[in-house]
């Protein structure tokens, strides 16, 4: 067996080990992404793992408690100003004061965390979507051209 083949076999073993380890790490370090509250609620496994859910901040729902260092708000299916049915909002508790720059009533947000036992969403991170200025959205372009801005990651490590 040539030395090149020996090294290749050794390399393949290392790759297999790494692959196995990488696969085992996915569950702990990833988030399932749901485009709507409805989609989130429809997936039973979504209640048991870390997720990111996209929605809109319900008007007047933001309570910023500086003493307790937490922000609570509700997230709903559609933008408040759009009118029409908003669906059942989801109550979110975020144990931090570090809200993103664009966080306000009606803001398009992505909440990251897990669904608690009481039905309240425990957010570990809140990301606000803002229109990206890298390029204007063309009329009729369905893919919403948005970036994410918040404190802990660069804009756009998600969305």
């Amino acid at each position, binding site marked *: 067996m040539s030395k090149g083949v020996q090294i290749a076999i050794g390399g393949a073993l290392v790759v297999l080990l790494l692959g196995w380890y990488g696969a085992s790490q996915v569950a702990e370090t990833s988030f399932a992404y749901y485009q709507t509250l409805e989609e989130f609620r429809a997936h039973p496994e979504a209640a048991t793992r870390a997720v990111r859910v996209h929605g809109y901040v319900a008007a007047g729902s933001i309570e910023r408690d500086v003493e307790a260092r937490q922000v609570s708000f509700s997230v709903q299916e559609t933008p408040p100003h759009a009118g029409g049915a908003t669906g059942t909002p989801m109550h979110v508790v975020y144990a931090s004061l570090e809200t993103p720059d664009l966080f306000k009533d009606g803001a398009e947000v992505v909440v990251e965390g897990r669904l608690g036992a009481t039905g309240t969403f425990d957010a570990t991170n809140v990301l606000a979507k803002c229109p990206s200025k890298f*390029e204007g959205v063309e009329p009729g372009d369905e893919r919403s051209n948005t970036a994410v801005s918040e404190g802990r990651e*660069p804009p756009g490590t998600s969305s």
Partner: protein
Amino acid sequence: MSDLGASALGLAFFTALAGTVAGLLGGLRKDPTWASVARRAVHIHFALVTIAIACLFAAFATLDLQLEYVAAHASRNMAVPYRIAALWGGQAGSLLLWLWMLAGYGTAAVLVNRRNSGLLPWVCGMLLLNSAFFGLLLNFVSDPFAKLAPSQLLSDGAGLNPLLQHPVMMVHPLGLYLGLVGFAVPFAFAFAAMASGELGTAWMRTTRRWTLWAWFFLSLGIMLGGRWAYEVLGWGGYWAWDPVENASFMPWLAGTAYLHSVMVQEKRDMLKIWNLLLIGLTYTLCLFGTMLTRSGLVRSVHAFAQTEIFGILFLGYVVTIAALFFSLLIWRAPELRARHQLESVLSREAGFVVNNWLFLAFLGIVFWGTLFPKVSEWLTGTEVLIGPAWFNSLVGFVALPLLLLTGIGPLIAWRRASGSNLRRQFLWPAGAGLVAGGLAGALAGLRGGVFPLLVWSVSGFVVGTIVQEYVRAVRARMRHGENPVTAVATLLRKNQRRYGGYIVHLGVVFIFIGIAGAAFNEERLENMSPGDTVTMNGYRLEYKTALPIPAQHYGGAVARLALYEGDRGVATLTPERRVYWLEQQPASIPSVYSTLNEDLYVILTAVEPDGSATVKLYRNPLVNWIWIGGYTFVLGTLLIMWPHPTAGGRSRSAEE
């Protein structure tokens, strides 16, 4: 003016098409007439694209709001340098910049190698085929010279994202593009070698400097991107495994593997197929990465707004170019059998092979992680996003062995290392590694886990290797009567790749030292009323006040915090929270107190209604070493590329 640009762009597209055909005919028929047509097409194409981009620059400089592209990316309140740099702030302009660089590289490569009659027609053909694709996009899909209808004209443009109006951001895209586009030259030569059947090392030696050049700029672009993220984005970090970062990092990994493995082919005439494979992979990844960021395939901040057709066209292009290259490689493979075999696992060439495997494993990790959301969506219907933690948990397993090899490689002999050779070579570097590890353990302890300690001891070992290599070589020259300074200069001139390469490795060591420091990062969120203080690792930070910002284009608040080290005041930190009026874009501008030991990085998160400030504090140990490593890296690469009359131009033309 803009009409001239549009016409030039149209002509450039047809020139590229015609030149591609001429190159193909010149190559297939070995016909000098067609070959010279192809060569001229390269130059004419470059001239036409230059006219087009000059027109677009002029449109930006004069703020020609008739042009849709200008109106969407520039505004009156932007300073002129930023207004000009806005040319590459969007899709169409950055494609034009890409095409211009590609055309420029083509002209330069043809001028330098004009006597290389066998390869050149194929080189021209391949380069112009690439140009033709970008010409197609610019003429028919993403036209920078498209005009607004009279009813849509505005009195001012929309402006560029204020976060991008930063000196680093004027240079970072240029660096990236010069790198990504630059790999087209070695790729085209490799393609030409296979197409023409001149399978020797001529294509590789001819493009050595071109490859280094591209690699240098790609490295620079990536590092500047990290620096910009750290200074501007205000999240305390410099790298987050965002798909766009990965898109530029993947070709870098393949290209770095290639730079190492060519040395094995030059020395031992081995790995011929492998090298062709690597350069093909590198350029394919350059294009693939560009497609990733531009087609909106993967969720990311840099994604440009896109039409469906664009993604399909681009995918078709990447697949075509890769298929052309790799099918030629399969066809030629029987003629590329190596003349030598690896003789021992303990040899320099085996070290290079392991190095290549590690780089490709690294590439595999990044590739898989980047595409995982898409794959999971296809398979399960739910998009699963992989966080930076996944990458961080894996890359150490390949990055640390790579760092170790940096120290081991130069110590092992070519062909077969003997026991006494190993003892003589490893004694001092291994000692240096143990000392470094012991020191790091005593200073930092195990708070950050085992990994940083391993990184720092391996760093000590690598530095030991580099110093030993220099000391031995300098001593040998001093025995011939040279003084130490001229000895070092001679080394860098006579064997610039080896001794310049060590400087590059030293830069990499510094970067690793800095990255390992991140294991000790601290972050805190504090709510402070005026007069409150917080302490962090011997520093005391006192919040004084917050003031409104007196600026024209943005508003917001600036906080003033006094920083003390013990009782000594060392700095006033002024983190800002801005809102840019025109763009309705908020931004947090961090304030950083930076030393060789650590950075203290402060962000103003909010000014609360009661007058208190919520601030985020980061302590980032050793982060400055990443930038120091970057400078060292640049210096080392320049030392390698520096043209010396003896080692450079003359011997190169002799090789041709």
